[in-house]
């Protein structure tokens, strides 16, 4: 009797573990901000492919990396998952996702940096559909109050420093930087300064740490000095991107780096602010740079229905559908001409895209950025000066690069 019961439970557990997907079913995990648009596209897809039924599951970005990783490792993954570009390499190297070279054929139509992210071992492991970079969002009213011309934002580092200084008055901080929360926020905001100064975190061949070289050190100093010189809020060490947006809305931060996704919530929560957008200032004789972020589709290796999964992903990758699904910009150049991307407030963000770069594909990338982030925090805490802190970070990073 007991054995029988056990057998029933065991069978039930196996069925649960293997998921509820049957042939012809495709489960697609997409983040909550995509939900409405995803439903429309799914309806379109099911019309065109009556044999395939798509089951949408809505995820939230908080804790998503852990959730996706757990699903991938457990062997009970859905057919298609939306993930951030930078996560793909870890999945590919741990043999958790399928190669999608047979799905994505028109490589020329994609922004190259987006494909860089999804490439490992000269194969493609994800299909980028959404890309974005930061620009600087600023408060035009605060510019006027400080006697600056809001239509002539700073273009070089020196001008940005002078502007931040002029804007910092009373409760207002001139230029907000991040130094806390999820470390990706700080990588996104500070690494471009290193790049535009001609430096990098690690060498192109992935063999040498470069964060303590003069170009990187100067950029890190430039970034952290906004806090040292009290042009960034006192709470910098606990601020992430969201906190900066809140402070901007509360009109205690006059300018900060972010993506176009912040604009809607600023407009909603404090309609009084006259929002301006500028390119990220660069050293006087050099070009600007930005870190390219965004989202891709991956097909887990343990997906029950890879054939239909590839069919769905192929459909989603069509220019028109990418253009419809993305919250920011599409990864395909041909989709960029759609009318929804011609809003004037997006102009500067669009101008920044060609300067967008991918982070290196290194299996220890997260640990490398952690070492760098710890270094930034040591500077902000006042424990060490920039050179010493970056020397320490370089040593930690070199140890990670030397691992087999």
């Amino acid at each position, binding site marked *: 009797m*007991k*054995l029988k019961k*056990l057998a029933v439970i065991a069978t039930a557990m196996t069925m649960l573990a293997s998921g509820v997907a049957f042939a012809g079913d495709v489960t697609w995990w997409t983040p909550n901000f995509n939900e409405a648009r995803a439903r429309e596209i799914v309806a379109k897809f099911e019309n065109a492919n009556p044999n395939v039924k798509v089951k949408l599951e809505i995820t939230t970005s908080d804790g998503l*990396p*852990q959730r996706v*990783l757990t699903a991938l*490792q457990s062997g009970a993954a859905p057919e298609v998952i939306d993930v951030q570009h930078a996560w793909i390499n*870890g*999945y590919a*190297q*741990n*043999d958790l996702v399928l190669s999608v070279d047979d799905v994505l054929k028109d490589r020329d139509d994609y922004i190259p940096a987006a494909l860089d992210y999804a490439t490992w071992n000269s194969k493609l492991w994800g299909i980028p559909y959404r890309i974005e970079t930061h620009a600087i969002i600023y408060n035009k009213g605060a510019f006027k109050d400080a006697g600056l011309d809001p239509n002539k934002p700073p273009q070089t580092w020196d001008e940005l420093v002078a502007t931040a200084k002029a804007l910092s008055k009373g409760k207002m901080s001139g230029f907000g930087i991040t*130094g*806390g*929360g*999820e*470390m990706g926020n700080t990588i996104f905001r500070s690494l471009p300064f290193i790049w535009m100064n001609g430096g990098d975190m690690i060498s192109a061949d992935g063999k040498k740490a470069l964060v303590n070289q003069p170009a990187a050190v100067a950029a890190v100093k430039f970034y952290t000095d906004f806090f040292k010189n009290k042009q960034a*809020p*006192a*709470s*910098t*060490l*606990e601020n992430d991107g969201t906190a900066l947006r*809140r*402070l901007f809305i509360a009109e*205690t931060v006059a300018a900060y780096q972010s993506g176009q996704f912040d604009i809607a919530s600023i407009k909603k929560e404090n309609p009084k602010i006259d929002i301006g957008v500028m390119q990220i200032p660069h050293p006087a004789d050099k070009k600007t740079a930005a870190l390219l972020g965004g989202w891709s589709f991956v097909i887990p290796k343990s997906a029950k229905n890879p054939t239909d999964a590839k069919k769905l992903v192929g459909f989603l990758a069509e220019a028109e559908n990418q253009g419809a699904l993305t919250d920011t910009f599409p990864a395909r150049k041909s989709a960029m001409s759609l009318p929804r991307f011609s809003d004037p407030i997006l102009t500067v963000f669009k101008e920044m895209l060609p300067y967008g770069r991918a982070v290196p594909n290194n*299996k*220890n990338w*997260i*640990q490398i950025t*952690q070492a760098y982030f*710890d*270094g930034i*925090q*040591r500077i*902000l*805490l006042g*424990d060490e000066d920039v050179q010493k802190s970056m020397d*320490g970070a370089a*040593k*930690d990073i070199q*140890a990670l690069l030397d*691992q*087999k």
Partner: protein
Amino acid sequence: MDRNSTGLVFVLPALIVLAMLVAYPVAYTGLLSVTDRQGAFVGLDNFSAVLGARATPQAFWNTLWFVGGSIVFQVVFGTAAAILLNQNFIGRGIVRSITLLPWVVPGIVAATTWAWMFHTEFGIINYMMTGAGVIPEPIGWLTNGSTVMPVLIAINVWKLFPFVAIMVLAGLQSIPNDLYEAARVDGANFWQEVFHIMLPQVRSVIVAVTLLLVIWGLNSITIIYAITRGGPANRTLITPIQIFRLAFESTNFNQAAALSVMFFAVALVIVIIYIKALASTPGEVK
């Protein structure tokens, strides 16, 4: 079938479930710790890589500091609260329930709330203290290297002292009244009752509770991770968070497993020493 083997058949399902839920993960962690991402045997490479990281010793000392600091105050405040709640006064039932609140609130909720209360710009603590003139300008409680760990310990103490209080209170209530009466006949005052009757009588409870606190402390992630994620600059990084980071942020399960194995060994040693030193001695101390 003799009696023994029949018995074995009956416990077999439970043993199988136990093996699946306990032995398999432990064995798999051991296996992960000596292999690379592709599953090839690499000996002790993962261990040396983890030990070589600058964060590892720092996290270890932080763990001892966090666990030790928390437990001392949890036990002291918890026991004091229990003795207080054991007295007769009006509204005792209400006060007892209120004391339990921090223990009932889910850890993540409490941590997020405290994080906002301690926030430099928006936090109510800075708001009240600057408003009352206690401090001239806002303090970065969670970003100042010297305040962040004490603040986290305080939050952890706040969260768990009610548990100690309730356990010790239960112990206090089982003390026979004769002991107090005899003491009073001999002219004992309140403090003599506390030190010569109450504490010796609940000693075994405190020992057991402290052991639980040690184990929970060594495994605690929620409060620190939700508030500082181990920052700033690893000031509050404790080993469980380092393991979590390695596994789920860096997707480096092998190094995470290696660190887990070492941490397990250390935790085991601490617990064994503790049990040998305290739990096995006779329950009464004069």
